[in-house]
């Protein structure tokens, strides 16, 4: 049952209104989108012509995309907590760490100085989520007592508790700066030698040769689709509506009969589940992970992702993650391209030459050869400046994030030529 054709805002039934993709246009767009992302990792003629994603099938970019997909899962979790339920949490890195350590405790090999039970992925991955969810339930009562900025500060403490615990238990987390090896992304029935599906080595599916990045990509795509659909459904369910009420004014919601404690606890539990699974995947994906990586900066990165992408929307979390993860890589590649242009003989090479410093002594704003911090800016510093500038720009000019920008563009064209 969809909306009436030609009248996209007219809904004739409740089911039609709450559908995830109610209009024909949205359904077709979804179909095309799914087709493109399924075919993207392969070298196919049509896909290779599309502007931005044509090079995403190279190994390097596919690895970056895989990392972005893992971050999407965590961002969806934080979106539920902060975007839908309005609970500011800077402890997301802590929950990811809890998930990762549960995964390595259950799935990692047991050796003299490190604990591990060597269990297969279908135990350690869900267990990572469940353990993080349980910890989230323990933390939730704090959200009932404090709200807003104060809750944010309280959750900062979680990150440092996590770091401290990782130092007290090097048997779980591995020694200080080195960390330990996480269980690989491979599927076994129980503790056999050979996994029946190994995502970390290249192999053959049907008649295709697939690389490990392509395999991991599809596995992560399935997980992201699952989590995104659950997230979107939660938003339009009773739980989601109670979260929205809490977000807007929790005292008023309580008066109306929305159970504040239960809603906040559910929000923490579910978002921590997402974070735990994402943390376990991230650590496994990185092979060797050091305990200091679950720090405050990681939590802030997720907040930045949601701010840039748009709080409260699944598409916002997706767009924000890809934007924040891919932009530094684009900037680096662009800087190298600028350097090549400056050295070459194209039309604009004079301009690039003035802008880019190729060797020591050559004038420029950005340097591709020297890495010393200062003027001219090294490429690494350029990344950081752009990242910070984007966060400030979005907060000032587009608080709804990329989703808000999309809505404005869409509304303009909806009313065209009468848009004013």
């Amino acid at each position: 049952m969809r909306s009436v054709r030609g009248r996209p805002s007219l809904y004739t039934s409740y089911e039609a209104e709450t559908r995830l993709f109610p209009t024909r246009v949205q359904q077709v767009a979804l179909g095309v989108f799914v087709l493109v992302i399924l075919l993207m990792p392969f070298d196919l003629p049509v896909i290779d012509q599309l502007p931005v994603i044509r090079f995403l099938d190279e190994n390097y970019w596919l690895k970056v995309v895989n990392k972005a997909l893992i971050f999407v899962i965590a961002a969806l979790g934080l979106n539920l907590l902060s975007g839908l339920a309005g609970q500011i949490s800077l402890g997301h890195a802590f929950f990811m760490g809890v998930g990762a350590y549960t995964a390595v405790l259950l799935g990692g090999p047991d050796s003299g100085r490190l604990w591990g039970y060597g269990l297969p992925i279908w135990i350690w991955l869900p267990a990572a989520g469940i353990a993080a969810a349980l910890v989230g339930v323990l933390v939730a009562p704090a959200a009932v007592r404090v709200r807003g900025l104060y809750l944010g500060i309280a959750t900062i403490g979680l990150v440092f508790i996590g770091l401290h615990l990782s130092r007290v238990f090097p048997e779980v987390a591995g020694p200080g700066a080195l960390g330990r090896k996480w269980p690989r992304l491979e599927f076994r029935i129980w503790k056999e030698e050979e996994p029946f599906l190994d995502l970390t080595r290249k192999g053959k599916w049907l008649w295709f040769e697939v690389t490990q990045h392509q395999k991991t990509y599809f596995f992560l795509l399935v997980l992201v689709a699952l989590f995104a659909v659950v997230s979107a459904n939660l938003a339009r369910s009773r739980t989601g509506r109670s979260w929205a009420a809490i977000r807007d004014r929790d005292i008023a919601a309580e008066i109306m009969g929305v159970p504040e404690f239960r809603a906040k606890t559910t929000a923490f539990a579910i978002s921590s589940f997402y974070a735990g699974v994402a943390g376990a995947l991230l650590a496994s994906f990185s092979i060797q992970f050091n305990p200091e990586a679950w720090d405050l900066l990681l939590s802030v990165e997720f907040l930045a992702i949601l701010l840039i992408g748009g709080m409260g929307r699944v598409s916002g979390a997706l767009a924000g993650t890809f934007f924040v993860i891919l932009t530094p890589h684009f900037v680096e590649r662009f800087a190298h391209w600028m350097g090549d242009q400056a050295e070459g003989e194209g039309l604009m090479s004079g301009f690039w030459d003035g802008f880019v410093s190729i060797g020591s002594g050559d004038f420029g704003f950005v340097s591709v050869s020297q890495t010393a911090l200062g003027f001219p800016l090294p490429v690494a510093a350029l990344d950081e400046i752009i990242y910070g500038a984007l966060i400030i720009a979005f907060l000032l000019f587009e608080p709804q994030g990329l989703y808000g920008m999309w809505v404005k563009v869409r509304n303009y064209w909806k009313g065209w030529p009468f848009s004013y």
Partner: protein
Amino acid sequence: MKNLFRVLAVGLALSVVAVACGSDEAKVEYGAGVTEDTVRVGAIADLSGAFAPLVVQIIDAQQSYWDKVNADGGIAGRQVDFVVEDNGYDVTTHLEKYELMRDPDNGVVLLSQSTGSPHTAAIAEMLVEDGLAAIPLSWYSAWPDPDFGENVFESYSNYCYESINGVEFLRDYMASEMGNDSPTLAILSFPGEYGQDGAAGAKIAAEALGIEIVHDGEATVIPGADQTPIISALVEADADMVWTTINPSGLAGIMGGAAAEGYVPLWSGNVPSFSYLLLGTALGPLFDTNYIVNSYIVTWNTDGVEGLDEMKAWMGENNPDLPVSDAYIIGWTEAMAAHQALEQAAANGDLTRAGVIAAFNEVTVDYKGLAPNQSWGGDANDTVVRETYSYDVVLADYDDGATIADGGGTGTALLRGPWVSDITKAQTYDGACFKTGG
């Protein structure tokens, strides 16, 4: 007429042969990372993260070295293309950049630097899969162990052996300079593979020399945390000498805090504990009188080192505005090792990745006095470097903010080195001193 014809024919044949032999350089077999005119050498370094200030200087020195190699004609007639990628001290980013390096079409033939212990450990297996060699920027004692890093070719000695040598030197120094024949020792270290490896070495030395450890602070110093409890415990223990395996900011905090309470022992520590920049702070005089610097290599001020004079001459001409630093020697020597391995591979006629690995296992790197000569082939117990250097701090020789063109110094004077203690010599290398179990 016939004879003339024969002579001409022979002459022609000989000249053809001469021309063919003359272009031997281009006959080197090559594969990923090498083309007809370039050799691509890579580095995945921390240019924006926790160790950026140090690593940026190391990379600048490496870049300078490769510029010199190119000016001198390159390798096997090819110019070296030095590709640096930033990992921001993040393991996942390191893995992403590694994908660029390992690519068979656009990748590199060897990694002349890989910053970070966990980062290099994460790629250790992939290095073996891809047959790529890497030089790590980490001196954890596990790198010479083929089970831990088969294609990882470490530079110089390691934290553990440095500690053994260093503690024995401290004991000797106390006896000869301060008239104390049985000094007591305190140990302070970070948790983790750096701190606890260094502490392990200090304990080995203490046991062998019969030194009493009155304060065992292994893994008690947390980077960035408040050091007051550490300082109190240290002052209470009142050891004659303190061995530290921490970082410069921790060292400054603890030394300063202890001195404020009137506790002034003889301090020393592993290379990463000290930075010559500390001499420009208010603690400079304390370092001058009470700190012994250790290193795997020579420092900027050392005289009579051929490699150092060469480096200073080249960098003085080409990078005169860079600040004076001991870190450049690390980068320069890393590049020397990579260069000599590549030259060996070219001499063997095999500039493929596998050829470079074979060359690393064959070559003995001559650092021209900058560090002890080094080789990797054969049993780790035979090839692991055991020599280190110990320096006195001379504040008068430290020039704050000097650039290479100014010709300033970093404030250290060589006391002993390269030297190896008998205890270190007697150690049988069978893996890291601080075992992590996985």
